[in-house]
């Protein structure tokens, strides 16, 4: 019936160059003499939040319109968007969620990488949104989907994601612009032109070829099968199939953490749990969880382990890559350590440690240490600490950790026969044990409370709820509520708070 304007919705995050992308589109349209309009709601959204830009282009030269002005809308509407371009996976999901993709009309172009929201990052466990949901919804609600990792391309081409996204938008064929006109607009903008053009070309070609998102070639670290000792192979073969790969990984990590004897102890304890599970008719579900978390627990993080990890040869190489250092640049590395009385005590023999802890009382805050690990002295100090590894089995921390593990394993084994589901939940509770300082203390406390409940016969559902509650808030309020316990003290280190002195003075004088 009538010529429609082409409507384009760009969903981006503040600071990704969405405004520049809009300017390019305006510039191309203006150069082609097409009526064009763009709007945005930047406001405070420029500060890292989700933001959108909305553009409409009337794909006929003004000269052909005889002075008539098309009326262009300022907001996108359902059934009214031709092209959605999102710079990130969840932002594509947000456009879908707002009902702005129409299966009859809308082409959806987006980058498949993730920039995690604070709500996802701040969880005590894994709070990431399941990206597959976005792919599913996109397939259902868009006329066509073009998706690939644009951030990766941008990094490789030394540019910002908006150039790749622009290329993909043009490559989709839904913009009424020839490629050359778009490249000319990038050239006119005059900033980082060459890199932008590379990014644009890469995005254009991927989109034009309609290449699939899945075709990400990841150079997987060449998995060389390390030969394992025969006895280990035999022990692994005796385990249920789902347990084996985890147990092999656990064995290897514990050899690295301590020594082969320590790793053998791991396999022995694991074998016992698996034997019980088999007697109870289980297929290895509990064993697999134990294989995972027992290995991690036995490889608990102490200052010795941290020193070892920070003095590895491969870290020196990784470090340069991690911070994007170029060849010829000189690095100064400062480690942020805060060893406290607790860390010190944990290295001492149990009885000495107890005595010292009693004397130190609540003075546990530790001293802030900024250690230069690029100097020979600083690095040597870490190496010295690393040398305490052989001493570890005689330390106080070792003793307490082993005792706690035994209690955990006993609780699991005890429930295998009568309620395997409860045993599985308890095994999964191994994930509560992690971290340093307050985090580690909280994990130990949480697991302790859950084991108390288990020993009093709590069922699988209760244990599951408690495990989830333990990861709900750092203060442990949800866990206490979940187990009907009094809430933990709100003021662990009370500060004397002074109230209304002047008024009280006035009242007493």
């Amino acid at each position, binding site marked *: 019936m009538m010529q429609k304007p082409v409507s384009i919705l760009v969903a981006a995050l503040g600071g990704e160059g969405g405004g520049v992308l809009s300017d390019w589109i305006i510039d191309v349209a203006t150069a082609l003499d097409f009526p064009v309009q763009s709007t945005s709601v930047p406001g405070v959204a420029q500060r890292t939040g989700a933001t959108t830009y909305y553009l409409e282009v009337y794909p006929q030269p003004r000269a052909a319109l005889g002075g008539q002005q098309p*009326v262009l809308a300022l907001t996108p*509407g359902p059934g009214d968007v031709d092209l959605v371009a999102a710079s990130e996976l969840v932002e594509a999901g947000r456009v*879908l969620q707002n009902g702005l993709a129409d299966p009859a009309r809308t082409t959806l172009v987006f980058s498949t990488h993730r920039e995690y929201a604070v709500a996802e*990052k701040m969880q005590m466990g894994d709070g990431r949104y399941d990206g597959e949901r976005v792919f599913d919804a996109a397939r259902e609600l868009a006329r066509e989907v073009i998706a690939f990792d644009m951030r990766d391309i941008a990094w490789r081409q030394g540019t910002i994601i908006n150039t790749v996204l622009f290329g993909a938008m043009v490559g989709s064929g839904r913009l009424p612009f020839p490629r050359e006109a778009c490249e000319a607009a990038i050239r006119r903008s005059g900033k980082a032109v060459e890199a932008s053009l590379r990014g644009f070309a890469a995005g254009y070609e991927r989109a034009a070829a309609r290449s699939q998102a899945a075709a990400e070639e990841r150079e997987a670290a060449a998995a060389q099968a390390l030969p*394992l000792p025969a006895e280990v192979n035999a022990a692994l073969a005796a385990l249920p199939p789902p347990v084996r790969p985890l147990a092999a990984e656990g064995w290897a990590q514990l050899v*690295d953490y301590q020594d082969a004897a320590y790793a053998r102890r791991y396999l022995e304890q694991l074998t016992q749990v698996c034997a019980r599970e088999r007697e109870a008719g289980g297929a290895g579900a509990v064993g697999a969880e134990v294989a995972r978390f027992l290995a991690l627990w036995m490889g608990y993080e102490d200052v010795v382990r941290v020193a070892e990890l920070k003095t590895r040869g491969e870290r020196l190489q990784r470090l340069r890559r991690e911070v994007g250092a170029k060849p010829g640049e*000189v690095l100064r590395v400062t480690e*942020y350590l805060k060893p406290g009385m607790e860390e010190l005590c944990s290295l001492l023999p149990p009885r000495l440690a107890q005595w010292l802890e009693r004397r130190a009382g609540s003075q546990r805050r530790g001293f802030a240490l900024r250690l230069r690990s690029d100097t020979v002295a600083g690095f040597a100090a870490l190496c010295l600490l690393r040398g305490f590894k052989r001493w570890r089995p005689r330390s106080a921390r070792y003793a307490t950790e082993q005792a706690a593990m035994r209690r955990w394993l006993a609780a699991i084994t005890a429930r295998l026969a009568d309620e395997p589901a409860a045993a599985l939940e308890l095994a999964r509770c191994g994930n509560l044990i*992690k971290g340093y300082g307050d985090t580690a203390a909280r994990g130990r406390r949480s697991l302790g409370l859950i084991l108390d409940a288990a020993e009093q016969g709590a069922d699988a559902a209760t244990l599951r709820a408690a495990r989830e509650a333990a990861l709900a808030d750092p203060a442990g309020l949800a866990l206490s509520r979940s187990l009907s316990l009094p809430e933990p003290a709100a003021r662990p280190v009370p500060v004397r708070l002074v109230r209304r002195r002047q008024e009280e003075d006035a009242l007493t004088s």
Partner: protein
Amino acid sequence: MERSFAAEVAKLTLGEGEVFHGEGILAVTKALLQSGVSYIGGYQGAPVSHLIDVLGDAREVLDDLGIYFENSASEAGAAAMLGASINYPLRGAVTWKSTVGTNVASDALSNLASAGVKGGAVVILGEDYGEGSSIIQERTHAFAMKSQMWLLDPRPNLPSIVAAVERSFDLSEASSTPVLLQLRIRACHVHGSFTCSDNRPPRYSRRQALEKAEFDYGRICLPPSIHAQERHKVEERWPAAQRFIREAGLNERFDGQGEGAEGARGLGIIVQGGLYNGMIRALQQLGLADAFGRSPLPIYVLNVVYPLVPDEVADFCRDKQAVLLVEEGQPKYIEEALAAILRKAGLATELDGGEAFARAGEYNGEVLLKGMAAFFARHPVAAAPAAQAPLAQAVAERVEDASRLGRLRAQAAAALGAPVPARPPGFCVGCPERPVFAALKLLQARTGPLHVSADIGCHTFGTLPPFNIGSTVLGYGLGLASSSGVAPMMDTRVVSIMGDGGFWHNGFTSGVVNAVYNRHDSVLVILKNGYTSATGTQAIPSSVREADGGKEAALDIEAALRGVGVSWVRKVPSYEVGTMLRTLEEAVSTLEGGLKVVIADGECQLERQRKLKPLNARRLQAGQRVQRTRFAVDDGVCTGDHACVRLSGCPSLTIKPNPNPLRIDPVATVNQGCVGCGLCGAAAHAGTLCPSFYKVDIVANPRWWERALYRLRQAAIGVLAGRARPLSQPAGAFQ
């Protein structure tokens, strides 16, 4: 404000017949110069900050025309500036963000409106309503009604906006009344074009001074003048305004045209000018308008939404069965006024208003399509002449399709299964305000929850996760003032927050002076980042403006505090979380009474990077030594508890899959956006988190001896280091 607006300033000098391309708010700026204004003022705030930014850089253009411009200290100050138009034939314009700015300005506005004006007085309002808004949701309309000021809401295209600005001055002078011109946020940011006319030098200006001062008791807010003024408003100014609106044709009437006009004659649409484009789009979707807005339906566009012109309205409605009113926001002032007009005119025309759309919220494409489809479902376009049957049929089909489109949102929700995580705006990478909230969070871990009176500014983001600090926000600069009722009722000392922008806007008097005078015993944290950052980093009285040649700030916050008798003042660098924590601990626990002020000192990182980046790029180019700092996380040491994220929330501190195949939870990582502010490390120390953070100072173009020392050290370290081996063995290796 270190950004340069040279390109925009150049657009302000375009002459007759030249075509301007750019943003709506910049078109308004140009229109002011074309209107012969003598003076311009305003206070920054999205979406009108750009007007102030550009004029701030346009000294030469303004000097040529003799126009006085000032960046006012507050909206109240800006509104009071319009007082110049009361006695003298001076045209003036001021601008701010509504409704928050209008609230601040309301005392001056009421007095201005009562006295009436001789010279045209226009207020450009950025109406921040709807999606992306950062303020409480209210309409400016009420202000216009209560004070009898006229409110324009032009169609959101550049020629209409520019014409509205120019005609506002004429309307103001014809009716002796100040005029408000509201532009929605998208209209301020709309990119379009218009044909310019020459800038007009004002009749009186800094080049052509007024001859003599005037006194007129009739303009003063004392009796009996105030009673005469009120009568003058309703008896003279109001009718004069309606006369001008009618005669100048400020409102637009489009009669139905083309195919189907016959059948649509019984229906009509009345629309606020600002919603015209969205309304036309919905008509297009329903097959009732072409690309150029030509519709078989008669449309009446209210470019002036207050006051209405009753006979114009009645004339439009007279021959119609039903009229659809498109009015955004609540309460529905226009709907109520229209209903009264129809009743008084004795018309039986059915009025369809708010119910068809939404009682509250922005009228976006979705709301407009739904509301208009509902209207045409109830009032089908008649198919009376046989020739129109296809149109009526087509519209009926489109109405049907609109209900399918209306279900897309629900369909998406079902397909997604779980709502995507919210992503509200937050502190920038390296923001100096974030560490202060980290310290406040650590403080509360020791003291238990404290009542925190928050304020307006970037620091309002402290109320969001991961901090959730701030129990109330009562207005700009009102953080401390809003603690005065709750502090005496609290068992513990109350902590208030204020930015340096809010401090100078009014917080110094309404907060600090009030607290000292009333002998409050509480704690105030002033976040001193050097600018009003949330509005786009404009300068404030305590800004250090290198552009002005001076290194010293004009005004000093600490001196101001001491000057009014605050003796407990501590200045702490923002990024030192440990020091900040100790200082706050002292502030809430000291035996000393009175107001205790902690100044958190750290320059806005956005502005700092804006200066630093080009500087470093130039130095690199020249082969000079440049040092940059990055933080990073040892992914083998991190166990995935994310306590660091809960204490920081930095966009550049994020997560990635755990490299250890046994671990489930993602590990922390610092991405390429890191500016090396140091919060990660400081928070890890202050919060005793974990040893996985490390800082790397990277020296580009190092001096020869630096390079030599580095090589030497690396060689020695290489020997000491453990053998290079992967952190974990490949799984399943035993087979």
